[in-house]
């Protein structure tokens, strides 16, 4: 049975502008999203910032009413049966908001335990366990305002697990964490999955989705543009290779000109310190290099290499190179 089903979910926002004269316009955040997640699956929703990930998650966690379409969690409708859905799901939103900073981590957990009707005996046992799992043991009596970003994020996770929910939503859980903190957090997520929870993880890091998820839905501009296992997604780009050209400043019109070449499938630009790395996806492989160099005439060029495509490249191709 599917733990989560999403059918043509859609969400508009009204935004108002101006101080004296207010004008209202509608913005589409989620245009058309459908997918199913199996019980016990770790499912990734991958997309660039503003693609509609958070909005989708908020609709599934009963915090937003969809403008169209429907969704069920464990067979319950997220709008009609919101009250029945809530005790059975847990969620964290990336970032540091959503905690009481002037209280200790322990106070935060105890408070939410009672909000989830966790009885006293259970919560006495469960909170220390959770503190252990998320690595906050020994720090629980300190105020949250003194916590590091990573600690707050892990406190969020502990809070989401207080009532032992069957379904978990993790919205950009590693956002803003340092590399070590992010790695620890990924380990925690992996462990949760082995505890047989259904998990929906959103991220804009390809490698994170690749490392954790059994299936990945790539979302861009409010629509699902691909949905498959990481391996299958990679196959989509197997026929191509990637030419990487190191540059020191490239004008936009040159990028446009290269994009327009008939053997070029996608172009993305990655900024590394002073340099820019232009990645050109092409079936021609190394043969493309002379033509590219010709178009880059007059620019300072560094290293040029050709390599096999990665999942990252598959993602770049799906969401369009500009997002890098």
């Amino acid at each position, binding site marked *: 049975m599917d733990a989560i089903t999403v059918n043509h979910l859609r969400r508009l*926002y*009204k*935004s108002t502008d101006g101080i004296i004269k207010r004008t209202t316009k509608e913005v589409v*955040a989620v245009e058309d999203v459908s997918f199913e997640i199996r019980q016990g699956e770790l499912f990734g929703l991958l997309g660039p910032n*503003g693609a509609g990930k*958070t*909005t989708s998650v*908020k609709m599934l*966690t*009963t*915090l*937003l*009413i969809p403008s169209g379409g429907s969704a069920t969690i464990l067979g319950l409708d997220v709008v009609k049966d919101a*009250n029945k859905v*809530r*005790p059975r*799901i847990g*969620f964290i*939103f990336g*970032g540091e*908001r*959503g*905690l*009481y*900073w*002037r*209280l200790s981590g322990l*106070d935060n957990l*105890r*408070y*939410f335990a*009672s*909000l*989830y*009707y966790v009885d006293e005996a259970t919560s006495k046992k469960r909170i220390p366990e959770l503190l252990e799992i998320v690595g906050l043991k020994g720090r629980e009596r300190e105020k949250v305002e003194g916590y590091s970003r990573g600690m707050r994020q892990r406190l969020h996770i502990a*809070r989401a697990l207080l009532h032992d929910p069957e379904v978990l939503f993790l919205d950009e859980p590693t956002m803003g964490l340092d590399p070590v903190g992010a790695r620890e957090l990924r380990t925690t997520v992996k462990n949760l999955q082995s505890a047989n929870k259904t998990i929906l993880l959103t991220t804009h890091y390809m490698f994170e989705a690749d490392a954790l998820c059994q299936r990945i839905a790539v979302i861009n501009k409010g629509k699902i543009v691909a949905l498959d296992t990481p391996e299958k997604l990679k196959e989509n780009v197997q026929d191509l290779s990637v030419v990487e050209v190191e540059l020191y400043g490239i004008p936009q019109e040159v990028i446009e000109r290269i994009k327009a070449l008939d053997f070029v499938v996608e172009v993305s630009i990655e900024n590394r310190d002073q340099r820019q790395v232009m990645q050109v996806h092409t079936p021609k492989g190394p043969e493309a290099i002379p033509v590219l160099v010709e178009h880059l005439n007059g620019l300072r060029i560094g290293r040029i290499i050709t390599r096999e495509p990665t999942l990252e490249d598959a993602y770049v191709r799906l969401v369009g190179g500009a997002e890098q």
Partner: protein
Amino acid sequence: MKRIGLNLRIMARAFEIELRQNMTDGFVLFGILIQPLIVAFMALWMLKGKGPDYAIFVVIGSGMTGLWTTLLFNGGNSITGERWTGTLEPLVASPASLRVVIYGKVLANVTQSLLSMIGSYFLISFAMGYPLTLTYPGLFFLSLVISVFSLVSFGLILASFFILIPDFARMVNTLEFPVYILCGFLFPIALLPGWTTPLSYLLSPYWAALALHGAAQGTLEPLQIVGTWGIMAFFSLVYILASGRLYRVILRKARRDATLDIVGN
């Protein structure tokens, strides 16, 4: 039955959490403690000519101003405050009823502001040497308890206005003194023009002040005091019943307009 127990526990936790947060917030402490003391001091000085018996009137009246200010600012903000910290979303997504949580929070604020009444009691009786006696102590304390609950029930409604009416928070400053005036905290409403009297009757703080002043100074018969309890109980019932519907409306509206959190998307 078990449900009631669990809800009481949620209310108690919300109460505790709110109390502890307030303790570290200077601005809140000002509204709760210092401002009423200053009002008490001023009123005592202004009403000096009325003789020492008026000290108890001042203690209660200025305490009521503190109670109302707390209810208006802290109680009223109890939903919007969560919105600013980003905790409204987890609150709403939890199975707990938001009304129960808010009730606990407002109760914490109102209880805390009673401290100012006690503070001015001690200040005026010990430090300044005024005689402070209660004519009907028992009736006074019962009136106090009933007043607190009727005010908290009103706070439940106020808090929803902050969500329902976008400009309410900006206008809230203008509601502080009108209630001081209309509810007879520090002067009888008989001094006001006659057309304002029905307005006073509609405000539960008026009945609370009437009961407390009456029980303290003996200006009301015991039966009349019990009468004000009935009126306060009636108002509380109306507020609580109304709040059920009101909270359903505001939560649905917030989920539709995406206003549960201040940061969008």
